[in-house]
């Protein structure tokens, strides 16, 4: 059987034409509005309370809509955006170093290896400056200079200093800003907040997204919730790899359930492996911890020149070290984009020059920076990261170089959306990491926070009005056949998971799935590997449904049951990821196919055949997905082979 079928291309992305810097303004002007009196009559469901979901829920409520917000954590403040460390990009040009909206746009399109939509990326760069204003007004304590103005720093993939930060906790501070705006609306009665609730199904009525089925994770109660529009802001799917820098609860269920109901899933194989994470220490490992990319500003990456050199790092003389990023990429050095830094680390480890247990690590050394700037300055910039490193590894990075290794961090793929951030299901909007995003095949550092907040504060609240202008829609209740069916599907699935009562735990399956994905759909992919992975995933999924053991019942807090449902969806996603990776016969950004590389091992894009977004349509369990291509046109940034040399 064929792995997939090719369908019609996507004809209209709703992106306006005309000069790129006028498109967003035109779209806003041409979009229909909803008058304030009518906004009060409409409800919007927002799933997820990270940077995108939190900011969207708060902003929609400020505009006068009734909002129902959901998160699986015990408080909206805990969404995984909170863990973002390094910073947020904005084209403020406060440094007077040549930055501009156009340069941020250019860097992002290039950094994404020419696989993103120009119109969207330009809009992102435009609103980036408003985000900083908004966050400062909320009291986000960004780092400042002595004169009282905002400080910025460099990040990978850019030669200007446009990254605003709050020590190593930028995500936390931005999220708390959005959370506080959200709680203000909760206090005013405009947002109904439902923490410890998980969306398990989408309700589609007459072709429109009209609600969701949720499970109260504390009582186990399953309810159907309705609205005039549904916004998914449920984050990325990096946990398909089991080990990733995502929080343990991060999952694909909300977007995958929507995919099964008709929303196309775009570019699932575009996943980002972050170069600077703490290496795995043993089989018990439950997650990986990121060390912010900002560390590459001052840390130098190296491995010994000789294979198998197991001397202590301080005993290896300077001329026996290979500062390989500085050597191969002299103009960007340690600040090359993530995909390039990750692959370079893999390459030196594959050569047998890796350090630490299993040879899966490279050094990130601060000795030079400490002698140049003093320990105090390094402490002020990275103190919390150094402490975190020491707590986890038991080693003091002020004294010995950090050991780092790449780990899965972010997913550029996600539900396909048009320029309005609407999926292929009318009334279903997708924002933040959950959509297929503006990052193309590779996201630049400090751009996730920018995109999440751009979508939530500024883009969605404008574009959703165009859809809601046709509302309010017919009132629905739990007795509607579509709601009854969606609810029954959820209940059946839970009963099925509980009924297996096999001999293996959910985690054991998740680990095994993650290993398959890391081996064959990770930093380097090949046709043979991907075909093997697809077979293995299918076999393991069958085993899962025959052998998984979930104890207890569905009538209360049951963390194994929650995990089982999420892992079941990861199995289906994993297969689609491999098919997407297999069909994309080129290397671009985070997607590196061994068959497609230049003589010196760099990614080789094939613009003639693959300059498109691959949007996949679900056609039924066990049936081949249908591929719809959205052609990418580059009018402003002309595709070239990315060079950071």
């Amino acid at each position, binding site marked *: 059987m064929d792995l997939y079928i090719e369908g019609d291309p996507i004809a209209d992305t709703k992106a306006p034409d005309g000069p790129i810097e006028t498109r967003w303004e035109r779209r806003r002007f041409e979009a229909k509005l909803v008058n304030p009196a009518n906004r009060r009559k409409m409800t919007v469901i927002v799933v997820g309370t990270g940077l995108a979901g939190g900011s969207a829920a708060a902003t929609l409520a400020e505009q006068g809509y009734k909002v129902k917000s959901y998160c699986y954590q015990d408080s909206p403040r805990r969404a995984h955006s909170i863990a973002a460390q390094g910073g947020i990009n904005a084209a403020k040009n406060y440094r007077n170093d040549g930055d501009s909206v156009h340069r941020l746009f250019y860097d992002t399109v290039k950094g994404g290896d020419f696989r993103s939509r120009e119109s969207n990326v330009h809009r992102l760069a435009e609103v980036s400056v408003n985000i900083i204003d908004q966050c400062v007004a909320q*009291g986000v304590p960004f780092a400042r200079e002595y004169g009282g103005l905002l400080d910025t720093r460099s990040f990978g993939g850019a030669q200007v200093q446009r990254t605003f930060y709050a020590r190593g906790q930028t995500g936390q501070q931005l999220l708390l800003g959005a959370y506080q705006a959200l709680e203000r609306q909760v206090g005013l009665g405009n947002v109904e907040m439902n923490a410890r609730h998980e969306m398990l199904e989408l309700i589609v009525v007459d072709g429109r997204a009209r609600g969701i089925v949720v499970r109260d994770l504390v009582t186990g109660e399953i309810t159907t919730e309705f609205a005039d529009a549904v916004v998914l802001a449920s984050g990325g799917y990096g946990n398909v790899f089991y080990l990733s820098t995502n*929080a343990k609860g991060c999952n694909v269920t909300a977007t995958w359930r929507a995919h099964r109901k008709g929303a196309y899933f775009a570019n699932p194989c575009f996943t980002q492996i972050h170069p600077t994470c703490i290496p795995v220490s043993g089989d018990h490992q439950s997650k990986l911890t990121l060390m912010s990319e900002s560390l590459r500003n001052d840390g130098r990456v190296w491995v010994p020149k000789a294979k198998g050199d197991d001397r202590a790092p301080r005993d290896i003389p300077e001329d026996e070290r290979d500062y390989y990023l500085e050597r191969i990429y002299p103009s960007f050095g340690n600040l090359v984009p993530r995909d390039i830094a990750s692959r370079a680390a893999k390459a030196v480890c594959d050569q047998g020059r890796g350090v630490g247990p299993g040879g899966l690590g490279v050094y990130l050394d601060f000795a030079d920076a400490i002698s140049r700037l003093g320990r105090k300055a390094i402490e002020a910039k990275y103190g919390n990261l150094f402490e975190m490193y020491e707590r986890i590894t038991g080693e003091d990075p002020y004294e010995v170089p950090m050991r780092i290794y790449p780990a899965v961090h972010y997913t550029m793929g996600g539900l396909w959306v048009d320029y309005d951030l609407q999926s292929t299901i009318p009334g279903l909007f997708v924002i933040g990491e959950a959509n297929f995003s503006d990052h193309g095949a590779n996201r630049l550092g400090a751009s996730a926070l920018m995109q999440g907040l751009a979508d939530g504060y500024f883009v969605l609240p404008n574009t959703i009005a165009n859809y809601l202008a046709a509302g309010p829609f017919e009132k629905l209740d739990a007795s509607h056949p579509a709601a009854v069916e969606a609810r029954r599907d959820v209940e059946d699935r839970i009963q099925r998971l509980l009924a297996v009562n096999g001999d293996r735990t959910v985690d054991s399956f998740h680990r095994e799935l993650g290993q398959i994905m890391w081996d064959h759909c990770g930093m380097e992919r090949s046709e043979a590997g991907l075909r093997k992975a697809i077979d293995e995933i299918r076999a393991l999924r069958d085993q899962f449904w025959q052998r998984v053991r979930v104890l207890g019942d569905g009538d209360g807090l049951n963390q194994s049951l929650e995990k089982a449902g999420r892992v079941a969806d990861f199995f289906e996603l994993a297969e689609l990821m491999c098919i997407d990776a297999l069909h994309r016969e080129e290397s671009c950004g985070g997607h590196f196919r061994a068959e497609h590389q230049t003589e010196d091992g760099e990614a080789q894009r094939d613009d003639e055949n693959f300059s498109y977004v691959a949007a996949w349509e679900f056609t039924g369990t066990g049936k081949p997905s249908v591929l719809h291509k959205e052609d990418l046109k580059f009018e402003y940034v002309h595709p070239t082979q990315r060079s950071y040399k």
Partner: protein
Amino acid sequence: MNLTLRIWRQSGPEDKGRMVTYQVDDVSPDMSFLEMLDVLNERLILAGEEPVAFDHDCREGICGMCGMMINGVAHGPQRGTTTCQLHMRQFSDGDTIDIEPWRAQAFPVIKDLVVNRSAFDKIIAAGGYITAPTGSAPEAHSVPVAKANADAAFEAAACIGCGACVAACPNGSGMLFTAAKVTQLSLLPQGQPERYTRVIGMVEAHDEAGFGGCTNAGECTVACPKGIPLNTIGRLNRDYLKATTKQADNTPGS
């Protein structure tokens, strides 16, 4: 390492609960505390016994979701460390470890080690913000902030809302949590217009949620994994006093 764990098991809010003893063998010193509990849970499931429920998410010390009393100490023996960042090298072979949920009136137990901390959200909803609806913000550089104030605001803003301060407090007070937010926002020029209404709203919500009063015992700051300083409570008290005096004067404005 081989360890004896005595863990609080409580099937639901109505259950009385009890300590149950488990043996866990072959614990690696490189494991995190939660990974050690993962190992126990995997074994329990295979033995047909329900795993121990505990809250956790990011496992890198920032989301604030995890938290348990370890040998009677919130987040365990290592200062400035959340439970998820605590590693087993802090313990010795043969140790007996007591593991209990946060215990405070305002944080009722849901199951085993999982408690309900939604009272914290209510305190924030009652004023822990600066009113700045999206789109209304002035240019970021139009309001400079002295670096010392920005740094002090950041220090207070580092709170992760885990609730260790409440669990450690002999009165079950949430004053350090409340004071951290009051301090952050009152140190910034953007926070001045709502400075006094904020502190009154937040303290009222704190008291209504069933948290105890603060008697300056100082246990909170010792337990805090993010080192929120005790002087934030001093700042809160000062603002609260000013605010209530103003209220009595019934003088609007400054």
